[in-house]
């Protein structure tokens, strides 16, 4: 009951924010409103009992999305030109579409209905079998890592491909020197600002430590490779903001980042192939150890590590690609 009221309030704010993002002409304002949008989404996910998803949205939406959008804004324009009038046809069609979809929702099961068709098929089996087959409490991690391991492998390769794509598109035809967060001989990052520098330096190790906690605690609480990769990447981005991009690249050179992107994906595939060599199917972890339950746990820890490494490397490579681009 209470949660329904909370949800209604937060969702109303969500709609208002979405309208404001679309209406504003200042793109910088739109990006700021987008970060509020993401906060609201995370709160909603939490209220809807999806702690893992909320943690992912928190790790991605709060830092990385804003930073990447700001990096792109610095390289393009900050203001949108006024759109021409006469978009009423679009508005009309979209309104009709929305009305149709709202009408269709009345056929859907009510929020939280335990008899809804989604809850009848595989989900109860996952919830029942996870403790027996894997012995880990977090069912989301179990499904992500083992039951639907193929799916996650695909997602990792999508992240990998996106990272390679960004690098191809952005590093063509330019010297690697200037940009929003780029090394500037006059001032490197926020070094002149004593307060952010001191506080930030204090926080960087804690963020990375917390990222590692999320990585390795993912079997027991909300967390896992995707969230941990994003959190650690945020920590390094904070370092790059404070000390200038050059220092961050000194600490983690581009070659290391690329190695992480490739290595994580390879680690994931390698675990799958190891299962095949030991006589099981691809991505079947039960054969990794003599005890199938331990084998599953080892497999999940390894592939989560692979996911974390790839996500962290990709997000950082993307950040550096935007930061190093020279504004023309």
């Amino acid at each position: 009951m209470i949660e329904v009221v909370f949800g209604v309030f937060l969702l109303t704010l969500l709609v208002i924010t979405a309208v404001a993002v679309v209406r504003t002409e200042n793109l910088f304002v739109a990006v700021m409103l987008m970060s509020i949008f993401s906060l609201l989404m995370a709160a909603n996910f939490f209220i809807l009992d999806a702690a893992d998803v909320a943690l992912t949205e928190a790790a991605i939406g709060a830092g990385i999305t804003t930073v990447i959008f700001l990096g792109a804004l610095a390289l393009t324009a900050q203001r949108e030109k006024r759109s021409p009038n006469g978009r009423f046809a679009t508005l009309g069609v979209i309104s009709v579409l929305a009305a149709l979809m709202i009408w269709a929702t009345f056929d859907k099961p009510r929020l939280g209905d335990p008899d809804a068709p989604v809850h009848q098929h595989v989900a109860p089996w996952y919830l029942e079998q996870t403790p027996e087959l894997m012995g880990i409490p977090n069912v989301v991690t179990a499904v992500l890592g083992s039951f639907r391991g193929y799916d996650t492998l695909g997602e990792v390769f999508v992240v990998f491909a996106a990272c390679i794509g960004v690098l191809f598109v952005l590093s063509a035809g330019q010297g690697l020197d200037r940009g929003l967060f780029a090394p500037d001989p006059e001032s490197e990052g926020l070094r002149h600002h004593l307060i952010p520098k001191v506080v930030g330096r204090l926080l960087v190790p804690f963020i990375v430590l917390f990222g590692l906690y999320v990585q390795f605690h993912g079997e027991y609480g909300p967390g896992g490779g995707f969230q941990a990769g994003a959190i650690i990447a945020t920590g390094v981005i904070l370092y790059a903001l404070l000390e200038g991009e050059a220092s961050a690249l000194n600490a983690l050179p581009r070659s290391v980042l690329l190695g992480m992107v490739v290595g994580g994906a390879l680690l994931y595939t390698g675990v799958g192939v190891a299962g095949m060599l030991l006589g099981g199917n691809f991505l079947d972890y039960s054969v990794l150890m003599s005890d199938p339950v331990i084998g599953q746990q080892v497999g999940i820890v390894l592939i989560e590590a692979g996911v974390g490494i790839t996500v962290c490397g990709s997000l950082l490579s993307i950040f550096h690609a935007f930061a190093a681009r020279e504004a023309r």
Partner: protein
Amino acid sequence: MELLGYFNYWVFAIVFAIGLYAVIAKLNLIKKLLGLAIFQSAVFLMYITMDKVEGGTAPIIQKGIEGQLYSNPLPQVLILTAIVVGVSMTAMGLAIVVRIKEAYGTIEEDEILDSDHTA
């Protein structure tokens, strides 16, 4: 009260429409990408709405509690990965926008089309 059970889906439909409107009607490419992100979030919201079970809790099994209901883990897994993929895809889109800006000097769709026609 019954109707409030559908509120999440209504919000999904409205936010979905807002995102789609931005993608279609806005000429600025970054605005289009923001619209795409909103659109994406609407879909995330719908999936996560489906996972909720009344009286349930997040699917992290607590020891020693019998008969506890848990929400559906499957939509959560799908969306968890989709969020990270979504941000990589947004970055990819932004990278292309940056290159378009360098090649055409603008990120407004109509101006880009104009300069293509005149060229």
